[in-house]
């Protein structure tokens, strides 16, 4: 599968504006190779917009480098081919295709037209492996639209795996999941980070405390704080701006999300 090279993500002075409104205002962020970085912040802080900028969906100024490659200025599908994969807040699997077909398409961006013109025979090895990793082997022939919500999210992650993404950008991967599903997803992230760099946008504080290796807090388009979970939680600015009230950092929010 992947893992030839482990690269870090380097975001320098990235700005995104829409008609005069600056959604991301000079963000700098270094995500070392193999990290599980959580990106948190109140609504409108610019988390998703930052990921949009990294993946080429919106135009941005500044510099985003993954390994040696500059990402800004490239079209979406080229950035993807450099090994950057993302998921979306709402699940966006191809519901009218089977789980297997979803994965096969995700694995095939580098296929030639000659390969595309032929049928798929059997299950390619990397797809079989991904199916096991995300626990959907038994559902491989089912339409993706019939999967439960959590399974769709795993399928999304599986698609990133076969896509050979070396940087995973996950936008609220555990939203709407049960506790058990969250645990499973967290364990999956830990496995994946062995040979990939992972960035997660998440609101769930409980999930963050358990699985984040480092945290970046965004507020109003800027980096408010950065560090380990403990460091960030102890930061008075974070408590004030993001968590609302200083004591008992995450519990109120977690209660609402769950």
């Amino acid at each position, binding site marked *: 599968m992947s893992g030839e090279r482990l690269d870090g993500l380097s975001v320098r002075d990235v700005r995104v504006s829409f008609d005069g409104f600056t959604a991301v205002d000079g963000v700098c962020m270094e995500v070392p190779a193999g990290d599980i970085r959580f990106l948190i912040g109140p609504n409108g802080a610019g988390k998703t917009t930052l990921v949009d900028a990294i993946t080429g969906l919106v135009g941005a100024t500044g510099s985003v480098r993954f390994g040696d490659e500059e990402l800004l200025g490239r079209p979406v599908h080229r950035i993807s081919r450099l090994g950057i994969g993302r998921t979306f807040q709402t699940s966006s699997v191809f519901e009218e295709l089977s789980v297997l077909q979803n994965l096969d*398409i995700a694995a095939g961006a580098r296929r030639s037209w000659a390969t595309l013109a032929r049928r798929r025979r059997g299950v390619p090895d990397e797809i079989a492996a991904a199916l096991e990793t995300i626990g959907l082997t038994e559902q491989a022939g089912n339409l993706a639209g019939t999967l439960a919500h959590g399974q769709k999210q795993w399928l999304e992650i599986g698609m990133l795996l076969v896509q050979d993404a070396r940087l995973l950008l996950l936008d609220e991967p555990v939203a709407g999941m049960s506790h058990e599903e969250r645990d499973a997803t967290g364990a999956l992230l830990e496995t994946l980070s062995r040979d990939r760099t992972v960035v997660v946008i998440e609101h769930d504080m409980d999930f963050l405390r358990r699985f984040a290796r480092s945290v970046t807090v965004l507020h109003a388009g800027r980096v408010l704080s950065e560090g380990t979970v403990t460091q960030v939680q102890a930061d008075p600015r974070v408590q004030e701006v993001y968590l609302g009230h200083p004591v008992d950092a995450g519990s109120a929010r977690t209660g609402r999300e769950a």
Partner: protein
Amino acid sequence: MTAVTPAPPAVRPAPVDAVPPDRPAGRARLRTAAGFAFGAALLFAVAPLMLSDFRLALLAKYLCVAMVAVGIGIAWGRGGMLTLGQGVFFGLGGYAMAMHLKLADAGPGGMPDFMQLYGQLDELPLWWRPFASPWFALPATVLLPMAVAFGLGSLVFRRRVRGAYFAILSQALAAAMVILLIGQQGTTGGTNGLTDIKGFFGYDLDDPVNQRMVYFIIAGTLLALLALTRQLIHSRYGELLVAVRDGEERVRFLGYDPASVKLVAYVVAAGMAGLAGALFVPAVGIISPALIGIVPSIEFVIGVAVGGRATVLGPVLGAVAVAWARTALSERFPGTWTYLQGLLFVVVVAFLPGGLASLWSLARRRDVGAQPARRRWLSLGRRRVERTEVPAA
């Protein structure tokens, strides 16, 4: 979208080492082979034996329309590009063929009759000349529409024009083509088009035997196109096309350029329409702006919608059924057909968005991707589908 089942069991299911079953290849292939054999028997034995020469000639015409429909099925049903201008490609193919046949009728060095009639031309226009050679004209019937579709598609898909905007654009193209043809009466035959075509590569088209031969060519071509379409749909490209239809942006994030994926389907559909136009000319003996404008372009689409746009066979059945109904009903109740056609379209879109072909797969939900985004039509159709699903699950 609603989750069909409640939240899944606690832990992820343990990995199973059994390789997931792919589509049941053997039986499906057998069924397809049987289907093709049945279709061939119908077209090559039953129809010629049962139908009069007149009806067989009509069927030949319908089958040409069906070829266009097969292409629309790929572009619209599988690729999500609602093309309301297939008449353009049909026309390019038709005119290319008709120009060659007119020149052949006129003999070496001769000019088509209509040019002498109302043209002030002393000699053949430059752009007509290559069509005197069958080696140019025949490939041109397919390649010319494909080239136009390629040029147009490259511009349009890269700029991410889609949905209703694409539909309107394609329709405007059909209108523009008709205006162009009518405006250039001296060299295109204007409103009359190219008529009175007598010969087909040395065969007299008035002879019923030769008409029958044309019918067989058309039937054989249609079967070949169906085989090609089936291969396309079940290839990896076919799966990718459905993915682009349902989530163009998502496909982009997987590293594909959706514009090229759509372009291929659009160009293939244009080639099929061109071939259909080319064969339409010897079958009917005429090609004119009225046969390729906005109205016929929409009628192509109605047939596809009625039959089932996302299946292989649906467009063919729909196109033939609608064309047949049109003839049968307008023979008996002239003037009502337009209303009936409109009604038919509304009913299908509202209550059976997958077309007649979906009646089959509603009963046995098998062919993946065969039901195009019901939710994009009226929700009524969606609810019906779910109701039939529940007891099966």
